C-alpha cells in the first residue's frame, strides 16, 4: 500500500500539501448542499410571509401544526404517498416483466429495447402534455379515437382526467418510469452467474423455480436500487401534477402544495415546514419500500 508508506511527521504535511488543490471542492460540497436545508429548517420555525414582512418572528411549531391540521395539506400528504407508492410498485413490476423478456435472445431485441427506453427520454412536461391532450382528450385524444375505431361511432367517449384524475397522473408517470426500472433490472439480470442457472436446469429445475430461487434473490439489490431512486424522484414530482390536473381534483401532492404556498400565498414559513415534511416523508417511504422489497425476498433466500 504505497499511499500509507510515507513516515509520520513530514508525511502528514506533505500529504495535505498534495491534497490542497482539491479541498475547495470539498468545502463547497458541504456548504452548498447542507446550508440551504439548514436555512429551510430555520425558516420552518419562523412566521414569515413576504406580503407582510413586518410580522416576521419566531413561530415555534405553528407552521408544522398548520401543515398537519390544514385539510388541504393533509390530503396532499396522502396523495403524495399514494402517487409515489403506486408508480414505484407498478413500474417496478412492469419493468421486471419486460427485463425478463429482453434478457432472452430474439431477433429485434436491440430495437425493442431502444423503443422501450423512448418514454424515459421525453421531456417530462412534454410527456405530461402528451398524456393530457394527445391521449386523454375526450374529443381528439388517442384513447377515445381507438375506442371509436374499434366500436364505431356509438363507442363510449369518457372524459378520462375528470373521471379518474389520480389514475390518469399515475398512468402517465408509470409510462415514463417503467423504462428506467427495466434498464436497472436488465443490468441485474445480465450480471447473473450463468453457470448456476445452467446447473439448476440440468438438475431438473423448472423455469419458475430458477426465477424464484436464483434470479429473484440475485435481483434484490437492483430492485432496491430502482425502488429507492424511483421513490426519490417521484416524491419530488411536480411537472405531471402541475400540467395534467393543475393540482385539482384531489391530485395536489406536496411539492405542488409547497409551490402554491410559496409562490401564490407567499407564506415562506409554512412552505418551508411543508418542505421539511416532504423530506421526512421521502425518507420514510424509501425505507418502507426497501423493507417491503427485502422482506418479500428474505423468505425465499432461505
Amino acid at each position: 500500500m504505497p499511499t500509507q508508506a510515507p513516515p509520520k511527521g513530514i508525511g502528514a504535511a506533505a500529504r495535505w500539501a498534495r491534497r490542497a488543490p482539491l479541498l475547495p471542492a470539498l468545502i463547497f460540497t458541504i456548504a452548498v448542499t447542507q446550508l440551504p436545508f439548514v436555512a429551510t429548517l430555520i425558516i420552518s420555525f419562523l412566521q414569515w410571509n413576504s406580503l407582510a414582512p413586518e410580522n416576521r418572528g419566531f413561530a415555534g411549531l405553528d407552521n408544522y401544526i398548520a401543515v398537519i391540521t390544514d385539510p388541504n395539506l393533509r390530503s396532499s400528504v396522502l396523495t403524495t404517498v399514494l402517487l409515489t407508492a403506486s408508480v414505484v410498485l407498478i413500474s417496478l413490476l412492469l419493468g421486471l416483466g419486460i427485463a425478463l423478456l429482453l434478457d432472452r435472445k430474439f431477433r429485434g431485441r436491440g430495437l425493442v429495447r431502444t423503443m422501450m427506453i423512448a418514454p424515459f427520454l421525453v421531456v417530462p412536461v412534454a410527456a405530461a402534455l402528451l398524456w393530457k391532450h394527445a391521449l386523454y382528450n375526450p374529443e381528439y385524444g388517442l384513447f377515445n379515437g381507438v375506442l371509436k375505431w374499434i366500436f364505431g361511432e356509438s363507442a363510449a367517449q369518457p372524459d378520462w382526467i375528470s373521471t379518474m384524475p389520480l389514475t390518469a397522473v399515475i398512468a402517465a408517470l408509470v409510462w415514463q418510469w417503467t423504462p428506467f426500472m427495466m434498464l436497472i433490472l436488465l443490468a441485474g439480470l445480465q450480471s447473473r452467474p450463468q453457470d448456476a442457472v445452467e446447473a439448476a436446469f440440468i438438475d431438473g429445475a423448472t423455469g419458475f423455480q430458477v426465477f424464484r430461487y436464483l434470479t429473484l434473490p440475485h435481483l434484490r439489490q437492483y430492485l432496491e436500487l430502482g425502488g429507492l431512486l424511483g421513490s426519490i424522484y417521484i416524491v419530488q414530482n411536480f411537472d405531471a401534477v402541475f400540467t395534467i390536473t393543475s393540482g385539482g381534483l384531489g391530485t395536489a401532492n406536496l411539492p405542488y402544495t409547497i409551490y402554491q404556498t410559496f409562490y401564490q400565498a407567499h407564506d415562506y414559513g409554512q412552505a418551508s415546514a411543508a418542505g421539511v415534511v416532504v423530506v421526512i416523508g421521502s425518507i420514510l417511504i424509501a425505507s418502507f419500500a426497501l423493507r417491503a422489497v427485502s422482506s418479500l425476498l428474505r423468505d425465499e433466500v432461505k
Partner: protein
Amino acid sequence: MSTITQAKPRKGSWDRKLHWVATHSIGIALAIGFTTPIVFVFLTAVMSDKQALSSNLWPQEWHFENFLRVFEKAPMLEYMANSLMYSLLATLGVMLSAIPTAYALARMKWRGRNAVFLLVVAAMMLPPQVVAVPLYDMWINFGLTGTLWPLVIPYFLFDAFSVFLLRQFFLTIPQDYIDAAKIDGCSELTALVRVLVPMARPGIAATALFCFLFTWNDYFGPLLYTGENKGNWTLSLALASFRGSHQVEWNLTMAATVLIMAPAIVLFLFAQKSFVKGITFTGVKG
C-alpha cells in the same frame, strides 16, 4: 458446455416454436404500446388544422410545414437559445465542480470521507422545492431572479447526482494506477487529470449526458426563477404555455412538442451505450 446450453429447452420443437411466437409477439406488442403515444404526437403534428381536432388517428394529408409554422407563432429560436445556454453552461459547470469532488470521495483517503459521501446522498434525496424558499430569497438579494443564472451558477459549485454517479465510476478504476502515478511524483491533482480522467472518459460522458438531459427537461427551476420574464424562458416553459395561447392549433402544439423531444432522443441514439451504462452504474457497490 455448448451442447449443454443447446440442450436446455429439451422439449419438443412444437413447444419451442410456441415459445418463439410468444416471446416475439409480447416483445412487439410492448414496444408498440410504449412508443405509440410518441408516434401519435408526430402524426398529429403533421395533420391539417382541422383534422388535428378530430378523433382521427392517421393524417389524411401530410403537412410537414407545421414544424416551420411553430417558429412563426412563438420566438422558438430564442427559447431554444435559452435552453441551450442553461444546459450547456450547467454541463460545463458540473464537469469543473463534480470531477474533483468525486475524485476526493472515491480515491483519496481522509478522515470523514464517508460522512461527506452520506451528505452527498442526502443532498441527492432533497427535493428542489424544499430548499427553494431560502435559495429564492438569496437570489432576490443578488438581484438575479428573472434570469437563468440562479439555475446555472449552482452547477459550477456542486451537483449531488453528478458527484454520486462519477464517484461510482471512479471506484471501478483500480487504485494501483493512481498509486503508480503518485510514486512517480504526481500530486493528487495531476493524478486526477492525467490518469483518472482519461480512464473514466465513458463515465464522464454519461454524467455530462445526464446533466444535459436533466437541465433540458427542467421545468420547476425555470418556472420559479424566470416565470414572469418571458425573454428568459426555456423551451419546456414555452411549451406549457404554447397550448394556452394557441388553443385551436392543436397540431402546432404537437409540432412544438416534437421539436422539444427531438434533441434528447437524437442525443440518446448517438450515446445509447454510455446512457445505459450510466443508469446501471448507479448500482455499483462501494
